[in-house]
């Protein structure tokens, strides 16, 4: 059995976890800074870095204590090295490297987005790649094929704002404040999603790419014109209508991709080697249609419900982690790290933070 101590500090959560064999979470400690950043209407990188350095040791100690183990019981140290805020990432990376060096344990560098996908490996112990995944978080909106552990092929990505960014900006515009995702979701419960028709953006010729900047502008224009006309803007209706537009865009592309990709060859077992013009579009007979949801915005229950309904209708089996594993955490980093560790991959002590690391 392999025990990995995982550390995650890419944004505003200081997190550490102990994960066994990539699937079993023994401890999962998260210290969130949301309260600190709320007054500034968003995450302030310098403040995040300062909070991480205060929290890092106690969080790591708590993860070890909760797991009932010491560093002696740990087989490897894993850390998120990107993408994220560089100053924030550096805290986790510096701490992980120092611990790995001092204990002589292997060091594993993990991509944060890959971590989000691997939260599903914890939630669904039988889930194995290859599969199609939809990653929706504060900084990322991706449709990707996970061909094997640690091996991804991007089918579509956002051309401008990530879904989470759009949530934050609209939340600010209608006075809900930060963090935008949960606040919009809550406000939308009292609103009418059909009250305002906001646009669903498309990129010509790129069926799987996302765009949210036009939607964001449409919301801001709507608020301005209503206020100019002296009409009261319904926070709830704007939130509900905006959320519906985002979720529609996401669901439409994800279901289309899953249906077109068809069976992801899970029946045949192996990783996909063929690289056609349209990757993985050769539907294998008998293959189960699967879609794996990941990322912080995956905690949005309206998105989950909409996706669930659309997938049921299209005969797609939807996998998603429980909301607690959707937001940033270190358990998912430990899950992803296990497969790199198993393949003998090791990061050097010169490992650096890579703020724009690609999947």
């Amino acid at each position, binding site marked *: 059995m392999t025990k990995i101590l995982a550390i995650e500090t890419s944004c505003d959560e200081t997190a550490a976890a102990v994960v066994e064999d990539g699937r079993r979470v023994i401890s999962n400690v998260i210290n969130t800074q949301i309260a*600190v950043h709320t007054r500034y209407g968003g995450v302030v990188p310098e403040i995040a870095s300062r909070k991480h350095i205060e929290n890092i*040791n106690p969080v790591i100690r708590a993860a070890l204590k909760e797991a009932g183990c010491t560093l002696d019981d740990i087989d490897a140290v894993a850390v998120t090295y990107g993408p994220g805020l560089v100053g924030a990432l550096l805290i986790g990376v510096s*701490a992980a490297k120092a611990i790995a*060096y001092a204990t002589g344990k292997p060091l594993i560098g993990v991509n944060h987005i890959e971590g989000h996908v691997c939260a599903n490996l914890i939630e669904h112990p039988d889930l194995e790649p290859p599969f199609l995944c939809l990653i929706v978080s504060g900084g990322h909106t991706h449709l990707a094929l996970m061909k094997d552990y640690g091996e991804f092929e991007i089918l579509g990505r956002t051309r401008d704002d990530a879904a989470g960014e759009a949530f934050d900006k609209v939340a600010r515009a209608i006075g809900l404040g930060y963090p935008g995702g949960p606040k919009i979701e809550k406000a939308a419960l009292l609103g009418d999603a059909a009250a305002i028709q906001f646009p669903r953006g498309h990129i010509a010729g790129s069926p799987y790419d996302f765009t949210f900047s036009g939607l964001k502008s449409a919301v801001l224009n709507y608020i301005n014109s209503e206020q100019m006309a002296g009409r009261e803007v319904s926070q709830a209706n704007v939130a509900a209508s905006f959320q519906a537009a985002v979720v529609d865009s996401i669901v439409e592309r994800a279901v289309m991709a899953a249906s077109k990709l068809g069976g992801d060859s899970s029946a045949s077992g192996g990783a996909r080697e063929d690289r056609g013009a349209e990757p993985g579009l050769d539907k294998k007979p008998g293959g189960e249609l699967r879609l794996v949801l990941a990322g912080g915005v995956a905690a949005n229950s309206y998105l989950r419900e909409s996706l669930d309904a659309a997938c049921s209708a299209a005969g797609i089996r939807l996998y998603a982690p429980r909301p607690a594993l959707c937001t940033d955490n270190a358990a998912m980093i430990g899950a992803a790290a296990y497969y790199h560790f198993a393949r003998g991959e090791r990061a050097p002590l010169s490992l650096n933070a890579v703020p724009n690391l690609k999947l």
Partner: protein
Amino acid sequence: MKILAIESATKILSVALVCDNKIIATRTSDNKKTHSETLLPMMEEMLDSCGAKLSEVDAIAVSNGPGSFTGLRIGVTTAKGLGLALDKPLIPVPTLEAMAYNFVRADAAEKLICQANETDNPCGAAVPNFAAEGALIVPMIDARRNQVFTGVYRFEKPETLASGAADKNGAKALASGVAGRELKTIMAEAALDVRELVDDLAGLGARKIIFLGDGALLHRGVLEEALGSVQETGGGARETSSVQMAARLELIFATGELAHPRATSVALLAGVMAERGEAVSADLVTPTYLRQSQAEREYTRVTSIGKKIISTTLDADNEGKVFEAEDEGADIDAIAQIEQAVFEENAWSNASVQSHFTNPCNGALVARRKGEAVGFVLFQKVAGEGEVFRIAVLPEYRRCGIARRLLSVLMQDGETDKWMLEVRYGNKPAIALYEAAGFERERVIQDYYKDPVEDALDMRKVIKEVE
């Protein structure tokens, strides 16, 4: 005692291993790579080269700032990680003090004299052991925005040895500093404008000053101009704008390896600190930044003028602190300008704003960002009741919560039980703002406003007692 030291506060990164005040090994790096990439490989190579094991180290010393925020965090987090994994204490060494400690050894002091002579220092630096003779040592780290992180230090005879017992034991003398002296803080570390530093130094009445660090290099011209020896100018004593040049100051600018922060000095000073019991748990150490983050600095600052009320800066460290207007005239002008930008033809003139303050019950709060006034609220308070007269925020700063913040500061004055205001019935955004601030609709006053005629909404807020 074996101390492993990290110095990463500035561009030049170094590590050192020191055992009982003896430097066993040190490595320095000034390359293009980041400290994050270089630090641990460099430490590993150094320890391997001298056959030392990490587990033999008794404590980890780290240069704890001030300095580059990112550089400090890489060094401090690495030290914290090592401390946690090895279960060893940390010694957080003040960076500027450690820089001054570059002169702890007599040979270091002599080296500096040689260097000073080589560069033909016109200040006449060839004074033997001047660090021991009580020269001020002023480390300066460039803090940008024309500021430096700096402090003033001096090697002095320890009080317990002042009766003349010093210098008998050579080894001990070395450990304590130049010729058995201890490093004393004359002026505590701070982020200062160079001009402020010049004034402070002039007031200390020293005859010799040693400058070091990238800040000294950067501001050498200003320092020499303001403090330098009169010999340099070729004339008699002269006065500068800030310094009475009655005393002749000898300025010495350290060069070479004495000029920048060094892990060896961090380790040696850490040894002294450890003896004083200043080693701490790795969990407790955080860098000394000496400066808030930009977001905190630029967070709206509210000043009060007129009737004194509780107002706040809205940054993390000073929340709840009272700021009275530094310049009421400037605030009145600012209010009039915002009036113009917001209310246009209905704006109050400068004179009208001024007349508001002739009533001792009236006051204002002014919100500032980066020093610029961006919004205000005018109010009156009489016997526990308050009234909001006017509130405005510059158009480009709306939707940032400034108006809400102004109201919230005003409502928290702790002496007013009930607030009221009138607002045009059709002014939906303003009504929404007041409702969000806890105001309730009391009644409608018919045709209260002129130009155009409009009803007013009378709104009230009762402040609940807070336990």
